[in-house]
């Protein structure tokens, strides 16, 4: 079958829709994650989503994976959200919980005796296993996250990018931090089921980090992050169909290439600005 034939299959279409929704959410949350310096806590949240999903699979079976992942991710995201801004303490607490979550997840997986595809899916993604029900759930959750995000976007940006000033202006910095943790936890839990725990970072971090290299506008950064995430996911799915391999390596590679290109562009931009400043100083 050609790629075009494959694209007409129901499960492929489900996978694409799921990927598009996930990339939209990840692209919108990404710049705030990067702005708040939360890349590591996203990784920790993903590992706990993995542990939650694996635990649910062991105890309740495949139908419960999503709920288990959601419970694990939101629980730990709330914990991270409440940690405050002391970077060192945050880092070590995340490291402690991340390794514990990973250990638990591995334990649950070794105790599980069912299909091995169910196991690996949580780590490396199982987008072809997405059915119509999953797509509907994902879309519904996506709409809720989008609406909440739209309503709190300005104070959230303020609290994330300029926290002291936001606090002085009466923005509820702490409450927003916890709310953002929940949005992030939900998105990570969904991402874990589609691209897998190991690659959630490549949708939540890489596109936003690439965008931050080429623009300082928060709005444009969000738009670019969404575009980059969409290209990585849709490109990754199509390419994996063609090659008959899991989607994760393709998504990760496309995102990485985008990041490299943006870094190069960013370096050029900085150099040009520096030489413009020099020229301005030289002429007076």
């Amino acid at each position, binding site marked *: 079958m050609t790629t075009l034939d494959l694209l007409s299959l129901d499960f492929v279409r489900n996978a694409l829709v799921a990927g598009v929704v996930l990339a939209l959410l990840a692209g919108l949350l990404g710049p705030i994650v990067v702005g708040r310096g939360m890349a590591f806590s996203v990784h920790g949240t993903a590992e706990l989503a993995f542990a939650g999903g694996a635990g649910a699979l062991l105890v309740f079976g495949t139908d419960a994976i999503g709920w288990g992942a959601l419970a694990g991710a939101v629980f730990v995201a709330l914990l991270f959200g409440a940690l405050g801004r002391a970077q060192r303490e945050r880092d070590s607490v995340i490291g402690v919980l991340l390794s514990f979550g990973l250990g638990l997840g591995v334990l649950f997986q070794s105790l599980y005796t069912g299909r091995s595809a169910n196991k690996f899916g949580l780590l490396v993604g199982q987008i072809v296993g997405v059915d119509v029900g999953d797509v509907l759930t994902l879309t519904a959750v996506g709409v809720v996250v989008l609406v909440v995000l739209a*309503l709190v976007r300005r*104070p959230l940006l303020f609290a994330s990018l300029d926290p002291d000033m936001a606090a002085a*202006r009466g923005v509820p910095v702490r409450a927003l931090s916890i709310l953002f943790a929940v949005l992030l936890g939900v998105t990570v839990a969904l991402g874990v089921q589609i691209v897998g725990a190991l690659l959630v970072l490549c949708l939540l971090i890489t596109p936003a980090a690439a965008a931050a290299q080429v623009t300082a506008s928060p709005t444009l950064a969000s738009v670019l992050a969404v575009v980059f995430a969409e290209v990585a996911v849709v490109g990754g799915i199509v390419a994996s169909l063609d090659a008959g391999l899991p989607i994760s390596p393709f998504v990760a590679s496309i995102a990485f290439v985008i990041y490299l290109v943006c870094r190069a562009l960013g370096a050029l931009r900085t150099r040009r600005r520096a030489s413009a400043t020099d020229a301005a100083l030289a002429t007076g």
Partner: protein
Amino acid sequence: MTPSIRLSGAEVRRGGRTLWTGLDLDVAAGEFVTVLGPNGSGKTTLLTVLLGLLPLAAGTCEVSGSAPRRGSSDVGYVPQQASVDPLTPLRGRDLVGLGLDGHRFGLPFRGRTERTRRVHEALLQVDALELADAPVGALSGGEQQRLRIAQALVGDPGLLLADEPLHSLDLARQRTVVDLLERRRRDHGTAVVFVTHELNPVLPVTDRVLYLVDGRFRIGTPDEVMTSETLSELYRTDVDVVRVRDRIVVVGAEDRLVHTGGGPR
């Protein structure tokens, strides 16, 4: 005319400790009040009260005739210079815009042209139009402080609160910041409450000094407050105040005046 600030019998407590009590202070429109005192004397806490973030334990506080309200556009706030990560997606115009409506929830579609105009005007007031599209993290400390002042001015406030805005700036940059605040109060009658450890950079523009030490305080013109007698009383130890040319040097309380930084939490 309604005073910009009216505090009467004001008392503030933090962590079970009374920082100051019985503070009466009226600040008129266009007045420049410099708040001095050692760390922990409640200088920043005074600003926290005026920003509407901390209620008084006793007494009353009015800002422009009504109780202080968090996020009020009538109060502008200039913080200590803090470093911004170079990759933070934030341009000069975004930083200023956050000062206008960053605290508001809801969809941001209304009044975009008006918003752009006000941000432009605020940037113009601090001669920072060329910084509008620059990433904030890539700017120097002085440039960032100019943007901070624009951010504080964008709501067209009747009262400006500044918390150590000169900290870690060199002398030329300090002068720029003081000049901008001075110009604003002259042209717009904006009252300024300026918290600092270092009186000299603002001495020429200071109308009155509020000096806080361990719950005791004095209010008056710099000539009234900055005397050996008054400061010795406040510090309860021998303090000498010496005038050297147009500077005031305080000798004897150095260990209490060391700057350790810290913004509002």
